[in-house]
C-alpha cells in the first residue's frame, strides 16, 4: 500500500475507533504478522517478517466492528479477526495484509447467572481473566486450554478449542449457547441463547476461524465451582491397555474432569512418575526430554531414527491420570473408586502423586517451544481424534510415518463415549535452519497423511488455519467442500474475511 493510502486508511479507521486504537507502526505490524505457528518462531528468530497487516485496529463496540467490516468491504481489504494470536496453525496470520481487528478491547464479562447456568462474555476476553472473574461468583466455565493465559473466548469459539477438562465439560462447541457476530457484509446476527428448533446456526459459526464472521460475544454454559477433588495416577501396562481403560471408564458412565494417558515417552516427559531403576530413560532421551530443553538437544537428536530405536527400549508403561471434581468429597471418592476398579485391570495404582504433579504443571508443558528452537531443534504438535476402533492404528501409523524425521511423543486426552483425541508432539533436529524447515515440513506432511489415512480427523481442537487448509478436501470430500464454499459465499460474499484460511 502506498504511504498516502495508508494515511487515509489510518484516518478513516481512527474516525471509527479513535486515535489511540489504530496502529501502523512497523513493530506493531510485525507483531501482528505472526501467531504461534511454530515456523513463524523460526522466521522471527531470523528477524524475518513474512506477513504483516497494513494496520491494526482495536474496536470497542459491535457497532465499530460493523463499521470496520463495511469499510473493508467497500475497499476490498482483507480483514483478519485476532484474539490473542495463540493459533498454532497460522490461523491469525494476515496472509494478504489488510486490516487486523484485535478484539481485546471487547474483553468484559457481561453477565453471570449461575442459577440459569449462563454467562455472556465479550469475544476479546482472555481465558484466565474470565475464570478469575467467574470464580468471584463461585462459578467456572470448565474450559482450560493450556493456552488459557494467552487465548480469548472469540478465538476458542472460532477454532473449536478444547480444554484439559473436556472429558467432563465438553469442548467449547458443547458450551456454546449463543453468540453475536458481524458477517462479511457488516450485518450483525445473534443466535441463542434460547434454542430454536431446526438448524443450529451456532455450529456453523463455531469453527469458522474468522472466515465467516467476527464474533463479538458468546453465551456459554457455566457450572458451580467444584469444592472437592479425588485423583489418582496409574501406571498402565501398555498403551493398548491404557486406551482400553479410557474407553471402559467412559463406558461405565463416568465422566472424570481429567482423564489422560501418556505414551511411554510422553510419560517420561510428563515426568510425573517417580521412576524406578528399570524405568529410567536412556541418557540421550533423558537429555532430550530435560524439563527445559538443554542447549545440546539438537545434537542429541542428530539421528531421530536412532533415537527412536533407543526409545523402543523404554518399557512400554504408560502414565494415566484421572481426577474427579465436584461439590462433595464423598461423591468424588465414590466415582474415583469406580474408575479405579477399571484401571486396576490394566495397570498399577501409583497413588495421588502423579495427578497432583499434573495439576501443578498443567499449563507449563506447552510453553517450552522457544527453548527447543533455541537448542537447534524444532518442535510441533498435531492433535487428531478417532473412534476407539481406530485409535491404536492411528497412533502406530503416525509414529511409523515420522520415525526418521523426529522423536514422537503422544498423549490421549479429551475422551468421549465413542473415541478420543491423540495429541502428538514431534521433536526433530535443525542442524541448519533450512534443514530443520525441510525436515519439519516432511514430518508434518507424513504425520498428517498417515493420521488421515488411518481414519483420524484432521484436527481435534487447533483448527485448520492456513497450515492444514490444503488437506481439508480429504476430510470433507467434494460435496463437503462445495457446501463449505456456499456457506462462505453466504456469510462473506466478497471473501474479505481471513482469506487463505480453511479454504486454501
Amino acid at each position, binding site marked *: 500500500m502506498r504511504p498516502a493510502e495508508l494515511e487515509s486508511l489510518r484516518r478513516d479507521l481512527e474516525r471509527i475507533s479513535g486515535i489511540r486504537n489504530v496502529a501502523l507502526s512497523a513493530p506493531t505490524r510485525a507483531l501482528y504478522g505472526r501467531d504461534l505457528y511454530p515456523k513463524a518462531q523460526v522466521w522471527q528468530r531470523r528477524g524475518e517478517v513474512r506477513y504483516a497487516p497494513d494496520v491494526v485496529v482495536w474496536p470497542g463496540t459491535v457497532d465499530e466492528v460493523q463499521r470496520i467490516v463495511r469499510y473493508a468491504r467497500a475497499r476490498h481489504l482483507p480483514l483478519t479477526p485476532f484474539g490473542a494470536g495463540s493459533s498454532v496453525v497460522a490461523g491469525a496470520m494476515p496472509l494478504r495484509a489488510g486490516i487486523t481487528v484485535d478484539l481485546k478491547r471487547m474483553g468484559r464479562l457481561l453477565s453471570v447467572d449461575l442459577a440459569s*447456568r449462563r454467562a455472556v462474555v465479550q469475544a476479546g476476553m482472555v481465558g484466565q481473566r474470565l475464570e478469575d472473574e467467574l470464580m468471584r461468583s463461585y462459578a467456572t466455565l470448565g474450559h482450560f486450554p493450556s493456552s488459557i493465559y494467552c487465548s480469548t473466548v472469540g478465538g476458542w469459539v472460532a477454532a473449536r478449542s478444547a480444554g484439559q477438562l473436556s472429558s467432563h465439560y465438553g469442548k467449547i462447541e458443547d458450551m456454546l449457547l449463543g453468540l453475536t457476530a458481524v458477517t462479511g457484509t457488516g450485518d450483525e446476527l445473534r443466535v441463542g441463547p434460547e434454542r430454536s428448533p431446526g438448524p443450529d446456526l451456532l*455450529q456453523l459459526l463455531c469453527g*469458522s476461524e474468522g472466515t465467516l464472521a467476527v464474533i463479538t460475544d458468546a453465551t456459554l*454454559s457455566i457450572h458451580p465451582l467444584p469444592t472437592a477433588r479425588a485423583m489418582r495416577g496409574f501406571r498402565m501396562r501398555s498403551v493398548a491397555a491404557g486406551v482400553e481403560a479410557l474407553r471402559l471408564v467412559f463406558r461405565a458412565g463416568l465422566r472424570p474432569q481429567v482423564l489422560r494417558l501418556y505414551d511411554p515417552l510422553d510419560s517420561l516427559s510428563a515426568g510425573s512418575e517417580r521412576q524406578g531403576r528399570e524405568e529410567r530413560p536412556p541418557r540421550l532421551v533423558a537429555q532430550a526430554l530435560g524439563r527445559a530443553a538443554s542447549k545440546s538437544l539438537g545434537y542429541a537428536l542428530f539421528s531421530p531414527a536412532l533415537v527412536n530405536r533407543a526409545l523402543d527400549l523404554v518399557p512400554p508403561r504408560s502414565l494415566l491420570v484421572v481426577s474427579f471434581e465436584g461439590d462433595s468429597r464423598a461423591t468424588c471418592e465414590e466415582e474415583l473408586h469406580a474408575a479405579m476398579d477399571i484401571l486396576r485391570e490394566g495397570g498399577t495404582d501409583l497413588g495421588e502423586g502423579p495427578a497432583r504433579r499434573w495439576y501443578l504443571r498443567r499449563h507449563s508443558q506447552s510453553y517450552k517451544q522457544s527453548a527447543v528452537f533455541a537448542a537447534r531443534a524444532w518442535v510441533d504438535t498435531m492433535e487428531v481424534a478417532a473412534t476407539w476402533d481406530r485409535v491404536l492404528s492411528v497412533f502406530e501409523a503416525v509414529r511409523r510415518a515420522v520415525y526418521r524425521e523426529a522423536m514422537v511423543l503422544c498423549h490421549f486426552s*479429551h475422551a468421549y463415549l465413542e473415541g478420543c483425541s491423540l495429541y502428538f508432539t514431534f521433536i526433530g533436529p535443525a542442524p541448519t535452519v533450512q534443514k530443520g524447515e525441510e525436515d519439519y515440513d516432511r514430518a508434518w506432511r507424513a504425520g498428517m497423511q498417515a493420521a488421515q489415512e488411518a481414519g483420524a480427523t484432521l484436527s481435534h481442537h487447533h483448527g485448520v488455519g492456513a497450515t492444514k487448509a490444503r488437506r481439508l478436501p480429504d*476430510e470433507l470430500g467434494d460435496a463437503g467442500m462445495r457446501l463449505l464454499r456456499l456457506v462462505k459465499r453466504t456469510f462473506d460474499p466478497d471473501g474479505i474475511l481471513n482469506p487463505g484460511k480453511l479454504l486454501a
Partner: protein
Amino acid sequence: MTAALDSGPAWQATGPDAVLTALAGAPVGQVRFAELPEGTAAVVKPASADDLQRLVSLAQRARGRVLVGPPRLGFVALDLSELDQIERPDEKTCLVQAGSGALLEAVEARAIQAGLTLGPLLPGYRAKRVGGWLAGPTRGERTIPPGRLETAAIALEAVLWDASLYRSKQTPRSATGPDLDHLLLGGEGRFGIVTRATLRLFPRALVEAAAARSVASLKEAIEACHEAAKAGLPPAEARWDRVRGTVEARFTGMGAAARARRFGGQEIGGRKVRAHLEVAGSWRAWHAASPLRPEAFELVALHADGAFGALELVDPAEAERASEHARAIGFAVVSPGRLRPDPAVGWTGAALPLYRELARLADPSGVFAR
C-alpha cells in the same frame, strides 16, 4: 414447473417398481415431473442412495420438486422406507449405522440386542424414522452425561441439490471448520436428503434407580425436574401425573441410587398413555406450562436450559388449542402439527435472512424448496 421433461419419467431414475402411486394423475410407472403441476403428486420409493441421486438429478433438469413427507401438490414425495438397513451396532464404539428410512424402534431393538440403547425417546418418536428424527426440529438430540445436549448423529450421508453424495467423517469431535452436518440436522430436507447416519448409542444402564416425589401442582413438578437438571447428571426420564400427585424420575448410571435418593422417596409403578402434545422448551417455558392443563407430562433430554417433553391431555380435541398456547409461551411444538424453524426463538438480526440466502444458494434449482 412448466419446463418440458427432457430426460424421462421418475421411474427411469428409480425403476418402475419404486413409483408407488400417482395421486389423481398418471398411472403408476408413468409419472413425469412435468405432469405434476396438473395437480398430480407422486410417491417414489428409492431403494438406494444411488436411486435417489438419479432421481434428484432428473428432478433438477426437469425443475421438479422433491420432499420427504406426505404427498403434496406439485411434489414428488419420497418414501424412504426402503432405506432401512441397520448394521450391527458396534459394541466397542457404541455406534450403529442405519439407513434414514429405518424406524427408530427398529434401531432401538438392534441396539438392545447389543446391550446398547438410543436412550429415552418420547412416545411419538418411537415410530419415527432416522431421517425425520435427525432432519426434524429436534436434530436427533438427547442429553449426555453430565447433562448437556448432543445430537445422536456422529456422521451423515446425504444427497445434495446437485445430486452429489455428501459424507461426513466419523469422528467424536473435530475442529475442521463449521460443522456442515448441521445444515442437514434440523434442516427439514432443505439442504439435502439424508440417506444414512451413524448414530451414537449408550451402553444400557447397568445401574438404574427410580424415585417418586409428591407434588401439589405441575408448577412444583417442573421445579423438581429443573432442580435435578441444574444439579448436573439429570434423570434420564421424568414423569408427572396430576391424579397421583407425583413426579417420578428414573436415573441411570453412576450414582443413580444416590441421585434418586436426593430427588425423592418411594418406588413406583406404570400407567396408561393418552393423547400427547410433544414439545421442546426452555425451563422458562416449562415453568409457564400450567395453562396447557395437561394431566401428566413425561420429560426426556433434561439439561440445564430445558427439556423435551410430552404433555398428556385428557381430551385429544384439546391438542390444537394447547399447541397454539404452547407456541405462545415459547415452546417448539413437535407434534401434533408440523414444526417450522421458528425464527422468533433465538434468531435475531441477520440470522434469518442469512439462513434463507444459504438455503437458496444450497438449492439453486429449488429441488428441495417448499
